[in-house]
């Protein structure tokens, strides 16, 4: 047996006194202060692990699957560590070659119009800022959270989207402008609600789980959610990924015409998709006749997704936007079809970078949830019950949201104070807009929509290669 366990030396070699042998062995083994818990002859990783492949997470993941016999689900967004970040891009404000605008005195236009480009729509959407709140369904979110988002968006002069769970009375009431989403599952879709909408959105996919349908676990299928979705209470809803009444893009063109007829050509039609082949998907989506394309990168948030899809599918937002913009340029659709980008937008700097890369508008999901109260350090014992803590929570799928944002439990839901939460959402949206326009003005732009890739430089080779933005220093895009 190999002697790499620190058992006291007992066996003596021939002709050596046993006590002397043990003393020598002890000296050799521990005379230099070695740790008795660490066997000799093995590297320092013995206790620590340190395998980059069999990390503690990988081991725990296998143990969990071996217990459950199925893949794992969770909320929030990807934990993949290898995604590029907007932090790898920086603005290059005006200096000698350009003039900046006065940050605190001169105006920078932030108004954003969606649905005007094709001239097919009587009432395009006009927002006071290039930001709106992403589709997050009633079901994923509590009714109070939906109401607070709607009220906050209205105060800030922007809009929200119903998400796939149908139109909630509270949200129609609170929102000034509301996008009504038709997902493949078509929960509670009818003429009455379509005619109450300010835009209609066909969702083909989302960044967190492209190629699959919505997911809502039984803990959140309350009586009201069940009624709105025509589901038995308490089932685990796994929605379809394909629409029930069209397949390819040519059929979708006809579907979009149907929606225009149903709304009497009054409101814009949006198509939302997860970023997977953004260049080609955007070109095809633009050809369907939609007014607005919403592109959700792989950082996009979710109420519940298979974890493996979060971490192993899609294109990061930063790389998806320039590809989509190129597609619109190449097909002559820039200006006609508007591009909304989403997925991992945290700050006004991220907003400005998304606009500079080619988005006409951005959409925020997770950030809006956090403004509502997600991950706030209250009800700490309830985070602990979920095995997490404020700042690290990603447990939206459990329906036990400690702050009442992503739950259907009536008591937990009450933890969202609609007025206070809406005010936080309002202030956050205002702050984002202020940040984005501060950067735009420093770059000499009188409108946030004039931000352009030239205003950016990439700090890393990857960011430059992904976006085509010049590498800082080299001043040209990294390319092969």
């Amino acid at each position: 047996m190999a002697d790499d366990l620190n058992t006291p030396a007992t066996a003596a070699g021939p002709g050596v006194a046993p006590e002397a042998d043990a003393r020598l062995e002890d000296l050799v083994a521990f005379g230099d202060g070695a740790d008795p818990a660490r066997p000799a002859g093995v590297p320092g990783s013995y206790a620590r692990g340190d395998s980059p492949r069999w990390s503690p997470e990988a081991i725990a993941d296998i143990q969990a699957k071996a217990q459950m016999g199925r893949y794992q689900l969770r909320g929030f967004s990807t934990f993949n560590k290898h995604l590029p970040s907007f932090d790898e891009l920086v603005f290059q404000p005006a200096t000698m070659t350009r003039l900046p605008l006065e940050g605190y005195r001169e105006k920078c236009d932030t108004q954003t119009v969606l649905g005007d480009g094709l001239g097919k729509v009587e009432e395009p959407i006009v927002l006071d800022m290039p930001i709106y709140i992403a589709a997050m369904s009633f079901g994923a979110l509590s009714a109070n959270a939906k109401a607070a988002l709607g009220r906050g968006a209205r105060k800030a002069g922007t809009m929200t989207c119903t998400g796939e769970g149908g139109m909630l009375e509270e949200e129609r009431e609170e929102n000034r402008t509301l996008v009504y989403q038709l997902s493949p599952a078509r929960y509670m879709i009818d003429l009455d609600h379509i005619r109450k909408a300010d835009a209609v959105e066909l969702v083909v996919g989302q960044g967190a789980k492209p190629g699959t349908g919505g997911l809502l676990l039984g803990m959140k299928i309350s009586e009201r959610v069940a009624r709105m979705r025509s589901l038995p209470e308490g089932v685990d809803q796994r929605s379809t990924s394909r629409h029930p009444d069209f397949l390819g893009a040519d059929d979708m063109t006809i579907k979009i015409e149907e929606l225009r007829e149903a709304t009497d050509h009054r409101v814009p039609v949006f198509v939302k998709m997860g970023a997977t082949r953004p260049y080609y998907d955007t070109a095809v989506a633009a050809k369907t006749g939609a007014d607005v394309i919403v592109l959700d990168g792989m950082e996009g948030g979710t109420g519940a997704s298979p974890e493996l899809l979060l971490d192993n599918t899609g294109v990061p937002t930063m790389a998806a936007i320039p590809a989509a913009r190129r597609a619109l340029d190449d097909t002559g659709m820039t200006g006609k079809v508007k591009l909304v980008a989403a997925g991992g937008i945290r700050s006004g700097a991220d907003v400005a970078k998304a606009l500079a890369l080619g988005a006409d508008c951005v959409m925020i999901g997770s950030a809006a949830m956090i403004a509502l109260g997600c991950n706030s350090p209250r009800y700490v014992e309830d985070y602990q019950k979920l095995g997490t803590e404020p700042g690290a929570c990603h447990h939206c799928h459990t329906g036990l949201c400690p702050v009442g944002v992503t739950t259907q439990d009536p008591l937990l839901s009450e933890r969202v104070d609609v007025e206070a939460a809406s005010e936080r959402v309002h202030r956050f949206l205002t702050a984002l807009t202020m940040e984005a326009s501060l950067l735009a003005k420093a770059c000499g732009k009188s409108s946030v929509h004039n931000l352009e890739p030239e205003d950016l430089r990439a700090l890393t080779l990857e960011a430059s290669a992904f976006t085509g933005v010049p590498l800082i220093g080299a001043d040209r895009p990294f390319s092969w």
Partner: protein
Amino acid sequence: MSALLQGSSAEAQVVTVEAADRPLREVNREIREAVAAGHRVEVVEPLSRHNLAVGLTGEGHVTFRGSVGYYCGGLSAGGAIEVDGNSGWGTGEGLSAGHITVNGNAGMSVGAAMRGGTIHVRGNAGPRCGVAQKAGDIVVEGDIGYSTGFMSHGGRIVCLGNSRGSVGDSLWEGVVWVGGEIERLGIDAVVVTPEAEEVAEVDELLASVGVDGSGLDWKKVVAGQKLWYFEARDAKQWLMI
């Protein structure tokens, strides 16, 4: 002149609308206004055009003298539509109230995601009939295509003829009734013996559209509920192994 008014009584006029190559928006507006006002509309030369009679309300009646394309009567919340011919994909999709009769065959996804009302197909219906249906009734006198009732949440699909494969796949609380032969059941679909009063309710539905279903050997297809919960014990169902 495209919308031709006949008769003098304000309540029940007969309006003739020509579809042909006129702008769809105009054609639909004429149909919509007449049906909302409770009139009878005759649409001539529908030429299998898509999106005819989308978004109807009211108590009027419209007859298409010929075949129609995709989404005829789609997203309607009223009106009675009769298609004197065949209909394309998504006939009556998203219907919430009203009545649609197709005298010929209907294409794929008739009654998709409908929330109420009745759709009656005298011929055969294509695949995915009643897909994602939420409520209401679909009656098909002929055969139904594959994946009929796929993920249907509620309501009834009643087929007097035979069913192709995968009938009742992944059902929630929707029910598919088949009077003829079933080629193959869908994932998690099971055939149960109906109660006498359920059969009486189906007979009542059929009688309401003037169809006699007596003497048929009804197979009632419902969910086996093995796809309702995301639990490993049911993994074989969703892996289809």
